[in-house]
């Protein structure tokens, strides 16, 4: 594994070797028999641009931040840090940094609608002056958070003895405030008296401040609300560092980070008559380089690329990516499984990765005739679509991600599995990993592995009908539809993946 980084570097030249994934860390691992609280289930994961920080959001509306620890000894000039290559024998290690309550459950009285606190997406913003900033959203409201170190200070050497004042408050306390107000009322003339004293008033002194410790403080800087009639499924920052978009089922809005009371609608797919509705927006993302381009995916399996320069309301797309279905293969489920649950631009801005229910597809934005590559994520589920429909699993929204070098892609599946595929030309890499401390176990034991239920704690209370949730495939494997790995993120510069198995955050490296 020591040469894992070197492999990635030479990969484009020779046939890339499959990566060997190793367990790195786990946060919030559940102990056997521990019940999972619904609010603890992770619902969003995102690395920041440099990969030094990681944020997760959960169904309880909390955002947890992690920071990378293995680069701490390089603390130096920020620009140097950005340019530095990390030694290849290290892998990213993270530690818990802080957490804060981003969203609270709300009730919309006008629409009699409960608004969950669940964090749908987190996106990091350009940080400045040592503060971390990020956007988090639930179904309706986007919030801009700044997390900053605050010094906890002890103030001493006050002019007015606080112990005395404390001793016989509230009487003295109130007299202080009234006297200061009196003073303010006739401040003009009093201060003229002061100016007569040329040396100032020697008995006055400024308070002494001693720093005791530093504390991380999260402050909500802006709240962008009341702009979405439907549930927000994505937010995405623009490369201009000034704007971002938020997308719900039918509309995409453009915001300026600094302005929270105004947004511009740039895409509106709502038909005049809602009965004509055939397609909804499922995900949207800005191009990583070109500030005027953005892509959004739909429930019909198409991706539209729009150019905001063309018009204020971008109802007409500049490019449409969709795969023609093979004739004769249509079934009741065709439309449902074609729905794209997530799209991501590759770092170079040339490729788009999309995830539908059974496959991952990689598109080249210069080629709209079809995907350049298609990866079967869990093709073995195809015969079971009927069951999956029955228990609603078919509507699960899996996310996908690309490695920073764009050579590999990853996405999640059921039974806490996730899959990594090589997408460079000629690569046959297709790895299945399980989100636990022994990620490669899956491959070795595929055929003979005993029932998953042995590994999963028996005391777990599951929603839905327990018996129907796992199915047995041809090899005797069971697939547990309740333990699904929906959210995962690839480190921007290294081969490291963070993924969420219900309430636990697992990190792997190669």
């Amino acid at each position: 594994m020591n040469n894992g980084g070197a492999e990635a570097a030479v990969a484009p030249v020779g046939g890339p070797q499959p990566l060997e994934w190793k367990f790195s860390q786990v946060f919030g691992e559940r102990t056997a028999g521990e019940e999972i609280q619904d609010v603890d289930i992770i619902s969003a994961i995102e690395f920041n641009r440099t990969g030094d920080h990681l944020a997760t959001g959960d169904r309880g509306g909390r955002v947890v931040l992690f920071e990378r620890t293995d680069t701490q000894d390089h603390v130096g000039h920020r620009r140097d840090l950005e340019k530095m290559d990390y030694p290849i024998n290290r892998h990213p290690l993270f530690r818990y940094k802080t957490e804060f309550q981003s969203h609270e459950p709300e009730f919309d009285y006008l629409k009699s609608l409960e608004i969950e606190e669940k964090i749908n997406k987190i996106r990091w913003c350009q940080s400045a002056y040592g503060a971390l900033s990020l956007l988090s959203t639930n179904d309706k409201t986007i919030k801009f958070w700044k997390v900053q170190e605050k010094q906890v200070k002890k103030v001493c050497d006050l002019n007015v003895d606080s112990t005395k004042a404390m001793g016989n408050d509230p009487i003295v306390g109130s007299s202080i405030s009234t006297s200061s107000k009196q003073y303010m009322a006739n401040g003009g003339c009093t201060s003229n008296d002061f100016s007569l004293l040329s040396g100032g008033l020697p008995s006055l002194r400024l308070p002494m401040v001693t720093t005791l410790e530093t504390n991380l403080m999260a402050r909500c800087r802006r709240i962008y609300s009341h702009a979405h009639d439907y549930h927000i499924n994505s937010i995405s920052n623009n490369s201009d560092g000034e704007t971002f978009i938020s997308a719900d089922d039918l509309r995409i809005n453009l915001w300026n980070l600094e302005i929270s009371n105004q947004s511009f609608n740039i895409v509106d797919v709502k038909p005049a008559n809602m009965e004509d509705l055939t397609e909804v927006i499922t995900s949207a993302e800005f191009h990583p380089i070109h500030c005027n381009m953005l892509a959004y995916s739909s429930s019909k399996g198409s991706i539209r690329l729009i150019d905001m320069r063309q018009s204020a309301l971008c109802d007409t797309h500049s490019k449409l990516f969709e795969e023609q279905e093979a004739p004769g293969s249509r079934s009741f489920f065709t439309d449902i499984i074609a729905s794209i649950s997530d799209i991501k631009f590759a770092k170079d801005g040339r490729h788009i990765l999309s995830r539908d229910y059974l496959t991952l597809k990689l598109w080249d934005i210069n080629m709209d005739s079809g995907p350049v590559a298609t990866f079967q994520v869990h093709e073995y589920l195809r015969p079971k679509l009927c069951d999956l429909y029955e228990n609603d699993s078919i509507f699960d929204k899996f996310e996908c991600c690309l490695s920073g070098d764009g050579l590999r892609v990853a996405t999640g599946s059921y039974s806490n599995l996730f899959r990594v595929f090589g997408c460079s030309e000629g690569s046959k890499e297709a790895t299945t990993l399980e989100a636990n401390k022994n990620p490669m176990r899956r491959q070795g034991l595929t055929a003979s592995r005993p029932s998953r239920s042995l590994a999963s704690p028996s005391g777990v209370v599951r929603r839905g009908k327990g018996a129907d949730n796992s199915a047995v495939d041809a090899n005797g494997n069971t697939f547990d539809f309740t333990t699904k790995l929906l959210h995962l993120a690839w480190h921007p510069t290294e081969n490291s993946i963070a993924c969420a198995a219900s309430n636990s955050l697992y990190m792997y490296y190669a």
Partner: protein
Amino acid sequence: MSTVEAPLYPIAVLIDELKNDDIQLRLDSIRRLSTIARALGEERTRSELIPFLSENNDDDDEVLLAMAEELGVFIPYVGGVEHAHVLLTPLETLCTVEETCVRDKAVESLCKIGSQMRENDLIEWFTPLVKRLAAGEWFTARVSACGLFHIAYPSAPETLKTELRSIYGQLCQDDMPMVRRSAASNLWKFAGTVESAHLKADIMQMFEDLTQDDQDTVRLLAVEGCAALGKLLEPQDCAARILPVIVTFSQDKSWRVRYMVANQLYELCEAVGPEPIRTDLLPAYVRLLRDNEAEVRIAAAGKVTKFCQILSPELAIQHILPCVKELSLDSSQHVRAALASVVMGMAPVLGKDATIEQLLPIFLSLLKDEFPDVRLNIISKLDQVNQVIGIDLLSQSLLPAIVELAEDRHWRVRLAIIEYIPLLANQLGVGFFDDKLGGLCMQWLQDKVYSIRDAAANNLKRLAEEFGPDWAMQHIIPQVLEIANDSHYLHRMTLLRAISLLGPVLGSEITRSKLLPVVVNASKDRVPNIKFNVAKVLQSLISVVDQSVVEKTIRPCLVELSEDPDVDVRYFAVQGLQSIDQVTMSS
């Protein structure tokens, strides 16, 4: 340790509150920073207060914003201009914070201070600060630096000037789009201080770099500064260097850039001579009027009159008028509304014949527009056309438009047209008004929306002012007074409102003979709300009518109301009686 003499106690508290846990107290204290400084004296302000503030940089943004603002006017408290440089340190820190409004305020304060500093101090203190910020680690510092060059530059010696220009050039090519945006939006300020030779070379080079930026948002801001920059150049240089850029921008791929050009084009025309306008800017403007993005057409249409004013009438008729015709039939209602709000102003520019021949059909078609805003915008500017061609040609179309607006189902539209009625009355004359609009004015008094009824009452007052009491007696009063018999009490309330407004305009005699009897009659209404409004109206009429009338009519009526079973009626009646007494006493 804490024995502060009694008179100093409040200021001691104020100082302590600079570090209070309660943000509101800290804010209040920062707002009184000048008082603290005066108490400490100049010497200690420099040596203690300012260093103390410099360390206070991780406070809440609200406090930092207040501090940035206070420091901008702090020169007198640190001992005058020769000590101004001590203020730079705390402001420099504030220039790097993350919150934009704090940085902007800090830059503003630095500019204020810098513009008062002595030349040597600027070189010794201010310019190094600008250089430090421009080389700042965080982009926030570099963003702030861009706004300070125009202060530092003029007093700098030649070598330093060269350096400053090259630093600014680097900022224009910074990695961060935020920095380039700041460089673009501050370029014209900096350019204003640069010598003309360097302006033509260095600054224009920076300008050209910015206009070719990848980021739309940077190019946008470059356009915004175009006109200001153009005015600094000689007309021929402006035509040679800025004009081509603008013409290219007017065909930019991004509608936002074209929108900005549409907004700026008129300003730029002032900077270049008449010849380039005809050859370059006019075609560019015509293209923008025909742009395929509605937002761009809205911006362009809004400038159509201003643009025509700088063209000769022939050019306007030949090039602009055809576009105006197209725009009046535009598919976007907002484009038509933008056009309607300015198109009337073209009449004086084009003259009588062209207006009748060319513009009139456009006015008429806009008056029939399905979108009420378009019609309203035309009606609101009626006076401009009236001066040129008179109203007769329009009046036939005007009436149906007004009637339709008057009956629009949106009350805001009805409200808007009511507000134009006095203007219309003035333009159309008494005769036209009597025949056609009088009925409408009465109709509004019984509208189901309160705001409309209220506006209608006010409208009657303004009409009475316009046409005089005699006309009002004949055309308004009889109809209004009929409402007294209306079965709806809200309508009767409107009547009272109208009377209280009309009384002062119509004068004592008419009020006594016509209005007062109606009010007195209404005091016997069965609805208490009417009765206490009667009391209020009577109170307002005390000053209008003669003393004798007050005693003979108003007082008895109020006395009667003051014995009413309803408490509110009694209250207002007593108020009325009291004001009668006051008037009697003072006279």
